[in-house]
Each structure stands twice: as C-alpha cells, then as structure tokens.
C-alpha cells in the first residue's frame, strides 16, 4: 500500500512533465506558423528563394537524365563495321556473321551484301545524276559490310581479337578498308564514348555543385531572416526561454517555407517539363524523363518536401546557434 502511495506522485509528476512537453511543442508549432503569416515580406522572400533552389535542383536532375538518355540514344545508333571482299559468297558471309554474333560482347550483327550496298547507295544519291551515271558504268567494287553493335563502345577488344585471329574473315577481308574501330573512325567512336562518361559523371558533379550552391543561398536567406530578429531572440533568452523553445518556432517556420516551396517548385518544374517536352524533343531525348517524372510524381513531390524541410531545418539550427549562447 505504502509502495503504491509512493508510486502515484511519481507517475503524476511524469504525467505532468509529458503534458508540459506536449504543450511546449504545440506552442512552438503555433508560434512558427504565426511567424510565417505575420512576417509577410520575409516569408515571401524566403519561400521564393527556397522555391528557386528546389527548382534548380529539380531542373539539374532532369537535365542530367535528359543528357544521359540523349547520349545513350546516340550510343545505340553507333555501330562498328567490318568489311569483306566483294567476292565473298553468301555462305561465307553467313558463317562470319554467325561467328561474330557468338562473341559475348556483341549485341547485334547485320550483313549488307555488295548488291544491297549498291542499292542503298543509289537510293541515297537518287537526285545526283552524275553519281548515278558513274555507278551504272562502274563494276560493283563495293565491299560486304557487317554492322555490329557491342555492349560498350569504349571496349572493342574482343572484336579486335576476332578480326586478327578469325581465319575465315582473314581469307575474305577487304584489303582496302580497315574495320571502323581501328584507325580514324576509332577516334570518332571514342569521342562518343567519352561523351557518355561525361554525361554520367559530369552530370552528377554538376547536380551536386548546384545543390550545394542552392542550399547555401537558402541558408544565407534564413540566416538574414534570423539576424533581423536577433533582438527578439535576445529578449526571449532574458525572459527565461529555453534554447529549444526559442529555436523551435524558427525551425517550424523553415519547415513551412520548405513545404510551400516544394509544392510550388514541383508544380512549376513538372508543368514546364510537360509544356516544353514537344519542343525540346526535337533536339534531345526527353520522353524517357517525362515518363519517369509522371510515374514517380508523388515520390518526387515527397522528396522535394523532404529536401526543402531538411535544408530549412539545418539552416535555421545553424543560424540560431550563434545567438543562443548563454
């Protein structure tokens, strides 16, 4: 019985403490929201800067994705060519094709016979009478072409080994034409390969740099906003407010900035993407990115809110820390 009596006041004190904490939390939130609505010009400025920041982040990521898609599409269009003599028979060509397609790094092989090559050439130059006349008079000296796509255009080692070691190819190869991944053409293919790498790595670095710069801009805006109210903070301290009670409303306010800015930035960013997709599609590959954004719209909005809130919270915590010593 006595034990129970001792426990009751303890439980009561604990209950009171919890109630106080809850009350304090609710009050901090209320003050944060009040500050947001009562400091109109600061609110507008901070929300605008945060919106621009999130928009820059969104656009940077979209641009990176578009760049990667575009370069990948170009990469897909790049094929490597091996040339065989005009006299190579269909059977020999089929055997070489079969051997090439068995290489693990090869994704597709297409054979264009000298006859097909001649027809294609005629089609391409149908407006050019002089060239067509020359073609009609000349004997067909066009080579047979194998158009080959490989997994990584930066690494044609396996194909290179095939060219050097395959006997059937060696017997039928066109002595006048080097394979495209050797000599001059190799440089062009390598340039494209470097662009792919640049799109992936450079895009990532640019995204990170933009994000850091944007976060710094937001941090400075919030710091200015808090600097403006340093006397208010000083006064709160002298009245006896705890650090957390002083900091709380600023943090809540920053979360509200982040939330509203995320809604506006996502709206503007996604809206702009939809509105401009047809025009942009003429130059770059954007449809994949638009599909991605459409599929993950909810997640993107959530991420934007989270990023906005985190930048806001970290900025306000750092900015108030200076004024909260003793």
């Amino acid at each position: 019985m006595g034990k129970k009596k001792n426990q009751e006041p303890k439980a009561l004190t604990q209950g009171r403490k919890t109630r106080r904490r809850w009350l304090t939390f609710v009050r901090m939130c209320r003050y944060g929201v009040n500050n947001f609505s009562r400091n109109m010009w600061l609110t507008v400025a901070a929300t605008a800067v945060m919106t621009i920041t999130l928009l820059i982040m969104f656009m940077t990521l979209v641009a990176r994705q578009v760049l990667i898609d575009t370069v990948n599409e170009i990469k897909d269009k790049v094929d490597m060519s091996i040339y065989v003599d005009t006299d190579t028979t269909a059977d020999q060509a089929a055997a070489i094709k079969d051997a090439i397609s068995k290489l693990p790094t090869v994704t597709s092989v297409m054979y264009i016979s000298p006859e097909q090559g001649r027809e294609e050439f005629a089609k391409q130059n149908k407006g050019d009478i002089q060239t067509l006349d020359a073609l009609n008079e000349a004997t067909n000296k066009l080579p047979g072409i194998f158009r080959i796509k490989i997994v990584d255009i930066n690494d044609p080692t396996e194909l290179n080994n095939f060219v050097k070691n395959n006997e059937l190819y060696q017997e039928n190869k066109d002595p006048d034409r080097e394979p495209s991944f050797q000599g001059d053409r190799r440089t062009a293919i390598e340039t494209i390969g470097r662009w792919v790498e640049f799109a992936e790595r450079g895009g990532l670095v640019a995204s990170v740099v933009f994000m850091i710069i944007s976060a710094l801009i937001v941090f400075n805006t919030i710091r200015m906003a808090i600097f403006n109210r340093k006397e208010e903070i000083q006064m709160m301290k002298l009245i006896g407010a705890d650090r957390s009670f002083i900091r709380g409303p600023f943090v809540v306010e920053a979360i509200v900035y982040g939330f509203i800015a995320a809604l506006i930035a996502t709206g503007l960013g996604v809206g702009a993407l939809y509105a401009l997709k047809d025009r942009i599609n003429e130059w770059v590959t954007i449809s994949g990115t638009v599909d991605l954004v459409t599929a993950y719209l909810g997640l993107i909005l959530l991420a934007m809110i989270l990023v906005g809130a985190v930048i806001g919270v970290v900025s306000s915590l750092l900015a108030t820390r200076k004024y909260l010593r003793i």
Partner: protein
Amino acid sequence: MYRMILLDRVTKSYGRDDKPALNRISLHVEPKEFVIIVGTSGAGKSTLLKLLTREEKPTSGKIVIGGIDYDQLKDKHIPLLRRKIGVVFQDFKLLPQRTVYENIAFALEIAGMTSKEIRNTVPKVIELVGLTGKEKQFPHQLSGGERQRVAIARAVVRQPKILIADEPTGNLDPKHSWDIVRLLEKINKYGTTVLLTTHNVEIVNKLKRRVITLEHGKITSDQAQGSYRQ
C-alpha cells in the same frame, strides 16, 4: 540574514588590458527593497545588470541572487534563474509580431503553464498595468508609455522576487515616466524587490529611496534616502 541580492568584491573586465567595467564592488539588497542605481554613461550600470541576469560572468567575485549562488549555477539552469527575475528595458524589447496579450502570455508559456492558468493570470496583470481593452493590439499600435507597461506586465506576470528596470523611462515624456515609476512603486508594495537604473534627476530626488551611485566602475555613494546631481 537572507539577502535578495548579494555582490561580494565583484570585478568585470572585458579585455585583459582594459580598465574594468566594474572594479571590486560589494553591495547587498534586502527583500522588498526599492533601490535606484545612478551613474553617468560608462559608469558600469549596464554591466552590473548584465551580471545580475547572467548575460555576463564576473571576472572575479561572488554573486548570490535570491539564494542562488552563481558560481554553482550550470548553464542549463540559467533559463530557470531568469524566470525568477523580471527585466524591463529602455527600448521595451517586445515581440513585434505578437499582441499585448500574447507578449505577456509568452512569459508564462515558456514556463510551461497551462492555457487555463494563462487565461486566469494575464487579464489580472493587464488590469494591474492599466491596459485593459488593449489586449489585441500590436506593439506598434501603442504609445511609448503603453509599450513600457506591457513590458512591465510581462516582467511581473510570473511574480518574480526581483524586478530589474534598466532606464525604463529613458524613452518616455515626463508624464508617462511618472506613470511608470508609480507602477514600479505599486509592484514594490506588493513585495517585489525593485532595482531601477535611471538618469532622471527629478525621479531620483522625488522618490526618496535608497540610491547607489556608480562612477568608473566603483560605488561612490550608497544613501538610504538618497538624491542625485548630474
């Protein structure tokens, strides 16, 4: 004997080579006393008040306020100490975005009082300082005298043992200055120790209270019913 404020050979220097702002001063104030501190600018009045509110730490010496020894006070307990001391400033230091009611209630909210307790207490203090009817106004809608009344209401709403008023009439005309001084006297009559710093010769001489004079960081006079000449 219990002393509300006790300073024992307190020195405060801001730089190593600078002259100390306060130089080995000792004083004590009894509970319910009304003490006026006078002195020219730079005499050390502000430093003294900053030491009492623990905005600054003394370079040497001992400070005990309401039984709390500052040497034993941990940083995390400073807010609790400040809730026991009411402070009023020359420039009011009100929260500009909050109404009269909210400014006063703020002092209770930070102490974790319930909304019901706040609703019961705040109107009484608003009545005490004569601002009934102005509860919903913002500081910028009030006169200087009214703003100072809000500041006083905020300082006394938690019924502190000590009220420190730092030049509370500095920004007011003579009529409003006297209103504020009368209000401080009323609060003192209810049992709060009041520490008032002022430049106003007329107020000091008419009040006939204890006057401590500071000059160049030292106490040069301490009179029970003092006067002041600039």
